[in-house]
């Protein structure tokens, strides 16, 4: 199925033909053009990936096809969207009446959206929401619609379809909800399915399952798919053809292999160069900075240099975490007795050395963020010890704890939410300096702020600006400058690059590595993204359900993964290489919940050392399948 020739040949006329489509927002005299004269065809039964970064206009394009932009304040300023409804009938959706559009929406063209957590209406049952489409377009009565809804749920491989029909969305996990969305979209056998970043918000193992389902059903039903994504790995796994968009323009188009093998447009080349590729450091023991191609006013420019990150000093650890346990009480009886606990972190132990990056990887509910917050003293641990520079955190005085807050800094995932919008970035960066009383003189503080801004690649005069005046990547640089302000020894980076576009992500990763070398910083790098982990980390700890299941050097864990969960995690990552055989491995199963009834403590894994410094949890044979 990886062979494009095996797909229905494109002898037919296109199913959808987008011709010079332009979409505008805002009033007519000061309109912002989000999509500029974009043209492409979608052949029946084939998958077209529309790729681009934020602001490229890819999502607007997808909404404009069904004229859903009408509801977001958008206006189609020109062009045609020709949809071949049947052999005889081709419609221009730009000119179609509202009633015709309503007949087509959900019936001939269906759509899946990015956020499965918010795509389903919280107040109606799953069954109701699927049946609705069927009664509307196929005129089924309630009983038949329910039967069909059940079949559809089985089709997307949801167990217990019967019971699920009467469940509400909040009772389902994100992966299950996205399957329900797919079932809903495919209810009326649409000819075209538009999927807007359908797996971006999901964990990698769940993403792999969802991609498999979409691919299988597409083959079974012969549906054409437009796949909107920013993830080149997903493109390589899913697409037959690719359209690359940049700032509202289509800059390149072609079969997926050609785009990857011989990208023509400079932007496509820049985009591909920035994509982190799993396995790119195979055989190399240390992380490595590599240059990134960025677009500088339409011209590609190479920034950075190749540099091996030999910064770690393994003489004495800076941070020692021993049997750290963090639990939260949830679920109380009428009389306030605790019935359930979240076992977020269970007896986790690891060390971090000066100048070293330890990556903590895992999916939702693995407890990785809880560890970061515990170290930052935002959460009290339930048990275990944390030593920083040899001192036990629990035995520290108030003053020492404050000092620890200065030495351990945190960079959050969302650079927008973690900067106060009402203060200048200069103020935000100066705050830790003032709070910790590092510099007293006002002028000296200003100088220090300017210095920090320069260190993270911004201009000194940026200090006077407000967060909204910066792009996402620049804001994350500001957050890094703020973290550096108190001259920390350890920085906890919690999904700090996950929300950024790949080209920005690559630059921020390089910046973090550069700063590490210059200041001998240690990083605890918390993430779910295996490809970024490979690039940045010296050692890796894999977390699953609150416990570390595998820990070792990056090379050992990536090249010789021992635990079944590590292997599963690695195999689930979409690889940005269309030449590669497409993943046939079936990953099944949900991530179990860390919530347990009181009294049912989880079993603590015993670890064995497979090679020096590479520890793996011993799996009970019956657990092997479940993990």
């Amino acid at each position, binding site marked *: 199925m990886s062979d494009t020739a095996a797909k229905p040949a494109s002898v037919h006329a296109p199913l959808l033909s987008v011709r010079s489509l332009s979409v505008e927002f805002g009033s007519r005299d000061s309109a912002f053009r989000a999509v500029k004269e974009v043209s492409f065809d979608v052949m029946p039964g084939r998958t077209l990936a529309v790729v681009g970064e934020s602001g490229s206009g890819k999502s607007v394009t997808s*909404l404009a096809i*069904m004229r*859903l932009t009408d*509801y*977001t304040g958008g206006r189609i300023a020109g062009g045609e969207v020709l949809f071949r409804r049947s052999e005889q009938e081709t419609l221009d959706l730009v000119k179609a009446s509202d009633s015709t*559009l*309503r*007949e*087509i*929406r*959900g*019936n001939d063209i*269906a*759509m899946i*959206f*990015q*956020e499965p957590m*918010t*795509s*389903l*209406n*919280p*107040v*109606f049952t799953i069954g109701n929401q699927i049946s*609705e*489409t069927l009664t*509307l*377009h196929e005129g089924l009565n309630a009983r038949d619609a329910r039967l069909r809804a059940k079949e559809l749920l089985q089709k997307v491989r949801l167990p217990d379809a019967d019971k699920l029909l009467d469940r*509400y969305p*909040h*009772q389902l996990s994100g992966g299950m909800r996205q399957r329900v*969305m797919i079932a*809903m979209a495919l209810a009326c056998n649409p000819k075209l399915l538009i999927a807007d970043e359908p797996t971006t918000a999901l964990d990698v193992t769940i993403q792999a399952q969802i991609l498999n389902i979409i691919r299988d059903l597409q083959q079974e039903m012969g549906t054409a798919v437009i796949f909107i994504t920013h993830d080149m790995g997903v493109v390589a796994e899913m697409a037959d053809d690719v359209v690359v968009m940049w700032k509202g323009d289509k800059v390149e188009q072609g079969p997926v292999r050609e785009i990857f093998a011989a990208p023509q447009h400079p932007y496509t080349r820049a985009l591909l160069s920035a994509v982190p590729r799993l396995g790119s450091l195979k055989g190399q023991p240390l992380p490595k900075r590599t240059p990134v191609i960025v677009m500088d006013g339409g011209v590609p420019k190479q920034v950075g240099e190749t540099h091996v990150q030999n910064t770690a000093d393994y003489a004495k650890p800076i941070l020692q975490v021993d049997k750290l346990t963090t639990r939260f009480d949830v679920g109380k009886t*009428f009389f306030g007795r605790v019935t359930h606990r979240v076992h977020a972190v269970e007896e986790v132990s690891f060390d971090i050395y000066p100048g070293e990056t330890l990556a903590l990887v895992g999916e939702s509910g693995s407890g990785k963020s809880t560890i970061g917050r515990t170290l930052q003293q935002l959460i009290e641990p339930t048990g275990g010890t944390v030593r920083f520079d040899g001192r036990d955190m629990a035995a520290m005085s108030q003053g020492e704890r404050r000092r620890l807050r200065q030495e351990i800094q945190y960079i959050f995932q969302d650079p927008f939410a973690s900067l106060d919008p009402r203060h200048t970035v200069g103020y935000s960066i100066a705050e830790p300096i003032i709070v910790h009383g590092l510099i007293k003189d006002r002028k000296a503080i200003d100088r220090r702020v300017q210095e920090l801004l320069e260190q993270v690649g911004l201009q000194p005069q940026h200090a006077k600006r407000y967060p909204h005046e910066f792009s996402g990547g620049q804001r994350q640089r500001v957050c890094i400058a703020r973290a550096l302000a108190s001259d920390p020894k350890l920085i906890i980076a919690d999904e700090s690059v996950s929300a950024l576009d790949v080209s920005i992500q690559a630059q921020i990763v390089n910046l973090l590595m550069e700063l590490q070398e210059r200041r001998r910083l240690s990083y605890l790098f918390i993430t779910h993204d295996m490809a970024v982990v490979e690039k940045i980390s010296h050692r890796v700890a894999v977390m699953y359900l609150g416990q570390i299941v595998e820990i070792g050097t990056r090379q050992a864990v990536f090249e010789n993964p021992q635990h079944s969960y590590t292997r599963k995690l690695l195999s689930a990552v979409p690889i940005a290489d269309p030449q590669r055989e497409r993943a046939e491995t079936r990953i099944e199963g949900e991530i179990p919940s860390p919530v347990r009834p009181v009294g049912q403590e989880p079993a603590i894994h015993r670890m064995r050392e497979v090679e020096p410094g590479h520890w793996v949890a011993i799996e009970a044979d019956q657990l092997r399948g479940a993990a």
Partner: protein
Amino acid sequence: MAGFILKRLLQAIFVVLAVTLIVSFAIRLSGDPAVMLMGGGGNVTEQDLQNIRQALGLERPFYVQYLSFLQGILVGDFGRSFMGGTPVSTLIAHALPSTLLLAFTSLLVSIALSVPLGVYAAVNRGRWPDQLIRILSLVGLSFPNFWLAIMMVLLFSIVLGILPPSGMEGPESFVMPALTMAIILTATNVRLVRTSMLETLSQQYIMVARSKGLADRVVLYKHALRNSAIPLVTYIGLQFGSLIGGIVIVERVFNWPGMGTLAFDAISGRDYPVLQGTITVLALFIVLINLLVDIAYGLIDPRIRTE
């Protein structure tokens, strides 16, 4: 759910206790009913007043009076009016239905007006229907209710002569009092519906509903409205209290024979038992309505139900 209702009922008992205590205490600070009963006549001796107080049981310490009042409530006996000796329960039984009828009519009229108007304003955000609705609601908010009531009487009864100016004599006597209350409620409710709908309409599931090909009516009134209902229902629960307060004034203007008139007269006459009785019953209703609101949350939103 049963545990939840039980908890709320326990809370309700405390609320009613607190309200009755405050009311009983406060009214005793406001004047001597014995003096009021004698009508301020010239040749009243202190002994006469003392006799009246004795007869009404007012010479006892406050806590004894309060406890005997509570004791009475438990068996449904609110005592007798100081004026004429009619049992308070009889007075309330007469007044309560007309007040509730007026309150619920006003509320229903307000919901019937504010929901479609609010939805319409939200859908047309920033365009002229939205602006118009917002301006009108601001105008509605700015009217004091008594002034609005008097203006209505002036227009409909005196100038046009199509509606009776006061009393409760048939469906047409409902129009003005109910409308007065409804206009004031609607002015705030429209804004609430609009804001809440705007929030809901920006949700992803609304776009999903549109992508299914559903008609606007279904998207707005099935998918969006129920998700916007929680703030509205909450507010109506809170509004019920001020609605009762407003009704005292509106009943006064339209001479409506309800709880408001009863309470008003009781205050002027220092008729302790009547006032205590009416306030207690009204407080019970406000607590009950808010209990219903809490139950309604669960019916509207399954996420609250399973908590």
